[in-house]
């Protein structure tokens, strides 16, 4: 019941972001479980959208669609965003804990799937000339999500607008660096593994 209430609170947050995010943090109106639910719903929305949007608006090649790509891209982006944001804000006097960051990120994604799910159905009822509506709504969903992310960060970390924008920029750079280090790490591990394997083979075949 508690979980359902936290889910329902998502709808309040997207219309009253400052109030809502404050309550998420201070009044514990939200939960990490609900936040994960919203992230999973976003992934689910992407999967359905890629396959089931009407032909007129669907530029995806069905043979090449891979569910794993959606899962990894959204999931990885969320993880990177949260980690990078947490690392930076701990240094920059942010008040949010890791839990708060995960919650505000998840709750910010609500408009994305809330708008785009009905759009999948709507795409089957409109012609290409009326496609403007489709694209406008898509754009609105992204802008709304973006605005919520900013507002969430502002409220959660008690930042000014200027500092929020600056931190967002740094967070994105941080994500890139994390990605780079991650790839580097995997590459090095791979090299070491090959090296060890080669030595093992050499020793065995002697």
């Amino acid at each position, binding site marked *: 019941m508690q979980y359902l209430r936290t889910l329902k609170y998502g709808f309040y947050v997207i219309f009253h972001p400052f109030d809502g995010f404050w309550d998420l943090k201070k009044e514990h109106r939200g939960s990490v479980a609900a936040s994960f639910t919203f992230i999973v719903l976003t992934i689910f929305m992407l999967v359905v959208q890629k396959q089931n949007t009407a032909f007129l608006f669907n530029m995806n090649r069905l043979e090449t669609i891979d569910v794993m790509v959606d899962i990894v891209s959204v999931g990885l982006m969320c993880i990177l965003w949260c980690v990078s944001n947490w690392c930076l804000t701990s240094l920059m006097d942010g008040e949010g804990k890791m839990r708060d960051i995960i919650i505000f990120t998840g709750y910010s994604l609500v408009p994305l799937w809330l708008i785009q799910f009905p759009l999948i159905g709507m795409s089957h009822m409109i*012609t290409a000339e009326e496609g403007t509506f489709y694209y406008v709504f898509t754009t609105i969903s992204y802008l709304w999500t973006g605005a919520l992310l900013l507002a969430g960060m502002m409220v959660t970390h008690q930042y000014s607008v200027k500092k929020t924008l600056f931190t967002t920029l740094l967070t994105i750079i941080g994500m890139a660096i994390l990605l780079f280090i991650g790839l580097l790490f995997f590459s090095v591990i791979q090299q070491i593994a090959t090296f060890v394997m080669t030595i093992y083979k050499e020793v065995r075949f002697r």
Partner: protein
Amino acid sequence: MKNSKKKFGKLLCVLAAAGSLLFPASEVSADTMPYDTYSYDWWGEDVLQPPAYLYAEELSYIQSGTKLKNPQDLFLKHDTLYVADMENSRIVALDTSGAMLWELSSFTADGAEDSLKSPQGVFVTEEGHIYVADSGNGRVVEFSPNREYIRQIGRPETELITESQNYVPTKVIVDGAGRIYVIAYGINMGLVEFDRNGEFQGFMGATQVSVSMFEYIWKNYFSTDAQKQRMETIIPTEYSNIFVDKSNFVYATISNLSAEDHLNGADAVRRLNPTGTDVLRRLGNTAIIGDLYNATDEAAWSSFTDIASTDYGCYFILDNAGGKVFCYDYDGNSLFVFGGKGSRAGLVRNPVSLALSEDQAKIYVLDSQLGSILTYEITEYGQALLGALKAHNEGNEALSYELWQEVLLRNANSEVAYIGIGKTYLKEGRYKEAMEYFELGNSRKYYTKAFKFYRKDLMQDNFGKYMGLIAGVVVIALVFVVGKKIKRWVGEAKCNISGR
């Protein structure tokens, strides 16, 4: 007895005829072809398809006189092939089997002996007048149908070309109104245009030079002198070949495009109207640049050297770099690509010119290195494909529909065929089927048209149902709202009464 024998003989005849229909005696076949036939689909990928043209024979005609030596131009008119044999300084006429009809190298001009020198272009008008781009002498010469000298058109008299500039005409065409267009080497202001009397009229269809803002800033403020020097070469491109169609539109190809030009979307082909404006339809899925490759593969860009067009708007372009022939329809959709470079029979070394027979049954490709003409014959698939487009162009929808079905039987990947059939369904009002075919043909442009009508029909047929549904929802919502209000009103009234 005699009678029955006769009958038996007749039967044999019929059987033999049937057999020859089933197993035609021609030697060409798809599985011995040294090249693949393909086209580009909506995704920009090359998709194999049945061959539209098969290699037939090589017309090298060594038997009569000297071999062609570095020939530069091929022209086909009324079943006669005219070749501009550059290094032998002559024009050669061949029949379609490759036998020589006549050759023309020297002639009597106004009482004096004269001769051609390295001609690179030849054109024959409807009346049989022969125009030769006499490159070595810097002039265009006109001959009568029996090869008598009529006139020559020399260097255009204009201040736009300086005295030091060479005038080397390489290709010449004459349109239905008698206007003469010449491509001259080193002149990058477009085609040189003469009127029917040989008076210089001006330049036509000049390629515009557009320098982007970024390029301008980069060049003027951020480049070293060495870089600047390399970049000086931003000059308009020259046309490589021209072709005039039945309605006096001039098709022109451009060959010397760099990879950068291709990526920036430069035109490789133009269709010029008599005022010199490019009116080529570019509504296809891909740019009309020949093979589509990525930026890293610089050597693979196609380089167009000749073009030939049909009455119904399909055109064939010869690519010198890959030795291929590209066919596009009126809208610029890629129909098929065939040919290649190599030493096997049917492949080319250095193709320079192509000619199309009147009914598109044969394509002639002139190879300057081989010194011979390669012929390619149309297949049943090619006939169906081109026939469908022709029928559609002539407004014969029934025939076009039939031929598209035949195309689909042979090539289930043909997007143009799906779109063609979809168009027929759209006209017949079978919108749902039309939508299906447009989706298979990846045409969103036509799909949305069909969908619009389909939706309209659906709404009209089920208007009552939908309106009933909406009305029902509204009524239920109203009942709820009003019910709530009444309850509230009753409650308030009760409160008021009890409060008193």
